[in-house]
């Protein structure tokens, strides 16, 4: 067993430092190890299998703060929001059984969106494992396929080194969630505490720079291309590479489109910015993809919401793929040139080899598409309804891009991506891969905590009425800590995105998407959780409500905007269709006219 080798190397190190290494209980080792790791905040919920750890926390009073969430799912999303806003690893601590299973959705979300979080779960004592004991689940078994890695700590002597490894794995390479399951008897046994400086991980390596031959090849391909396009994803932000990306784009005059998670990596007010692409991307952006002769993907994974029909995607383009995860190369779309490495390093390798080039014809062509179906345009409401897009626009007016925008999942999420002009990195937090309703509020809460450790930006949460109630209980936590969250609920009393699909593809059979008449009174819901509640029911109230919300700075404000249920997100590439096969607002009007 490898544990033998681990132990022998451990005892070799303790031989030197044995005098200094204090003997502590597992629970104390855990609390101290997090301190050593530089954790500044833990999102958690106590229970029987972690009560020893909570007790140790109370006794030791570590340097980090603990946030008592009201549901473990909220805890994992809060850790994600914190991680995405700060670039640090989020930490979660929950009990065994239901505590652990409640984190599963958040872990799966972090896995698909490459968010670095470490989830510590209590476990029943080792001698009871497998006996169907009270609050026992096979946590490592349950989370195996949704974690980057997971551990069951069977020996208190391995606890500190496992914590060290867990943070290292979560943070490095392609980031992701790591679960550490700690049985109660391990928390109660004693061992010398020594936090290793380096993680002991033989089978784990992280790519740095790309192969020089591939870099030369990529530079050559860029030089030869007439219609190049940069397609940038969340990896660019994870690698802190937005500046290098911007330099490359400007040096070679290559237009840039960003994925949902890539928003903010390239200033959208730039002439080369095309906005986002894919299912609800702009017309001109998807047309640019379909007509490009070279696509340079940077930290993006060719998700089906981006490509639609993958075989019909970018039919004329050669593909250069920059990614730190080798398994992303040629997974969905063939890469003609693979640059495996850290996006920041690879872009720095590439920059000096790329010559300035003239792409005027190509940019003119894209401008023509832009005029054909202009972005940022929507139907002004004919009656006295609030256009949901206008709420996003006014939020932009208010913040001027100096805010962290956190969204839930659904139509409002798409409108934020389309109408908010992201100007800085780590300013957009959303659930992309898993599409987790209920993500928004707790993630915004986590981001707001993250703002206390550095950047001082407003945190705005945009949510729908359906998703908001899925984790509404976390309002109490945000209020408890006086977080000045600005929460905008676009309330159409429907599960809007499903309703849109039912309108377009299921002959308007609105099967179980109507939330009336018992949708909550959102103002009262906010007030019941010690937050401020505001409501706008007509367009002229929107600005006032937003202004009023920004005057509150000691607690969360929930703004309810009542919007019409008929409003749809356009343009739209139907699932599985080719990217140039788009439904636009015009299409919808024609369809309505037929009726």
């Amino acid at each position, binding site marked *: *067993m490898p544990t033998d*080798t681990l132990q022998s190397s451990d005892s070799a190190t303790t031989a030197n430092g044995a005098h200094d290494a204090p003997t502590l209980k597992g629970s104390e080792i855990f609390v101290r190890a997090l301190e050593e790791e530089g954790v500044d905040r833990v999102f958690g919920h106590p229970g029987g299998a972690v009560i020893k750890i909570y007790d140790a926390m109370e006794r030791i009073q570590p340097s980090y703060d603990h946030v008592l969430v009201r549901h473990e799912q909220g805890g994992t999303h809060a850790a994600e929001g914190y991680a995405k806003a700060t670039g640090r690893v989020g930490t979660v601590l929950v009990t065994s059984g239901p505590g652990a299973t409640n984190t599963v959705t958040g872990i799966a979300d972090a896995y698909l969106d490459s968010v670095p979080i470490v989830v510590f779960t209590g476990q029943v004592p080792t001698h009871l494992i497998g006996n169907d004991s009270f609050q026992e689940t096979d946590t490592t078994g349950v989370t195996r396929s949704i974690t980057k*890695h997971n551990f*069951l700590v069977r020996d208190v002597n391995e606890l500190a080194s496992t914590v060290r490894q867990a943070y290292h794995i979560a943070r490095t390479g392609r980031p992701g969630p790591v679960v550490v399951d700690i049985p109660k008897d391990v928390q109660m046994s004693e061992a010398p505490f020594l936090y290793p400086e380096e993680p002991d991980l033989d*089978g784990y390596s992280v790519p740095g720079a790309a192969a020089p031959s591939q870099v030369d090849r990529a530079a050559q391909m860029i030089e030869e291309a007439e219609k190049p396009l940069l397609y940038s994803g969340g990896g660019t932000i994870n690698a802190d590479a937005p500046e290098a990306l911007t330099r490359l784009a400007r040096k070679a005059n290559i237009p840039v489109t960003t994925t949902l998670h890539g928003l903010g990596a390239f200033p959208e007010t730039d002439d080369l910015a095309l906005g986002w692409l894919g299912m609800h991307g702009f017309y001109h952006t998807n047309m640019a993809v379909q007509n490009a002769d070279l696509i340079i993907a940077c930290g993006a994974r060719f998700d089906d919401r981006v490509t639609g029909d993958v075989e*019909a995607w970018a039919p004329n383009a050669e593909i250069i793929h920059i990614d730190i995860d080798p*398994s992303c190369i040629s997974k969905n779309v*063939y890469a003609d040139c693979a640059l495996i490495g850290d996006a920041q390093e690879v872009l720095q390798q590439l920059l000096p080899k790329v010559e300035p080039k003239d792409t005027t014809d190509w940019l003119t062509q894209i401008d023509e598409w832009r005029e054909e179906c202009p972005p940022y345009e929507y139907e002004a409401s004919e009656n006295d309804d609030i256009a949901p897009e206008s709420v996003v626009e006014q939020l932009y007016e208010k913040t001027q891009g100096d805010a962290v925008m956190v969204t839930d999942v659904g139509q409002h999420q798409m409108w934020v991506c389309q109408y908010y002009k992201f100007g800085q990195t780590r300013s957009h937090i959303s659930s992309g891969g898993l599409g987790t309703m209920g993500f928004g509020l707790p993630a915004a809460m986590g981001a707001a905590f993250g703002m206390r450790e550095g950047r001082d930006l407003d945190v705005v949460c945009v949510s729908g009425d359906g998703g908001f109630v899925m984790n509404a209980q976390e309002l109490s936590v945000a209020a408890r800590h006086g977080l000045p969250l600005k929460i905008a609920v676009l309330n159409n009393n429907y599960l809007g995105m499903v309703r849109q699909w039912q309108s377009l593809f299921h002959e308007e059979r609105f099967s179980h998407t109507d939330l009336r008449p018992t949708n909550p009174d959102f103002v009262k819901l906010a007030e019941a959780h010690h937050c401020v509640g505001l409501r706008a029911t007509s367009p002229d109230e929107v600005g006032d409500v937003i202004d009023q919300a920004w005057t509150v700075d000691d607690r969360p404000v929930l703004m309810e905007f009542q919007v019409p249920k008929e409003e749809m997100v356009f343009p739209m590439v139907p699932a599985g269709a080719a990217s140039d096969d788009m439904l636009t607002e015009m299409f919808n009007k024609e369809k309505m006219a037929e009726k």
Partner: protein
Amino acid sequence: MSDEAPLTRQQIRRKRKFGEPILPEEEDEAEQEHRHIIAVELENTIGALNRVTNLFSARGFNLESVAVGETEEPSVARLTLVTVGNDRIVAQITRQLDNLVNTYDVTDLTDAEHVERELCLLKVQYTSETRPEILDIKDIFRGRVVNVTPETMVLEVTGPNKKINAFVGMMEEHGIEEVARSGQVAMHRALEYEAPNPLASADAESTTNGSASDE
């Protein structure tokens, strides 16, 4: 880019999808499905093994056989797996395996010079009439009788996958009661071997020939 530029793989995929004719020179070998034999060195724990097999079900990869056991280093296990897929899928499999934190080494042995073996135990019915023929076949396949009762015997045969298939096929008509197969194990041949003297060279030759004729 000029019109004469060769089609990208993405373009070939598109042509195939829309049923457009594909010129022979455009045919992409990478799209053909092949059987691959992959050796994985990993941490010798149940958790690590579980993670490898889980990967195949979670990502929908095909898994024909898997064999696992300890290596010369007790903390390291070696797993040999057989899968079928085109180059893109197999590259995915090896990269995903490589990504696992507790795998140390992943090698696709398919295109390298390698030996592969599988062990098969087969329980077959016999009568005094069929007994000589069964034993004859067993000899042809260089098998052994490892257990015998008045009505059945257990035979042991070792060899590459195809040989085992052939052996099981030959036994079918006699009434197979049970088959247990170990799954393939494989390793590189020692290609770098340089003979220190003619005698050793002859030995090495005969060993190679021996294993080759087995296949």
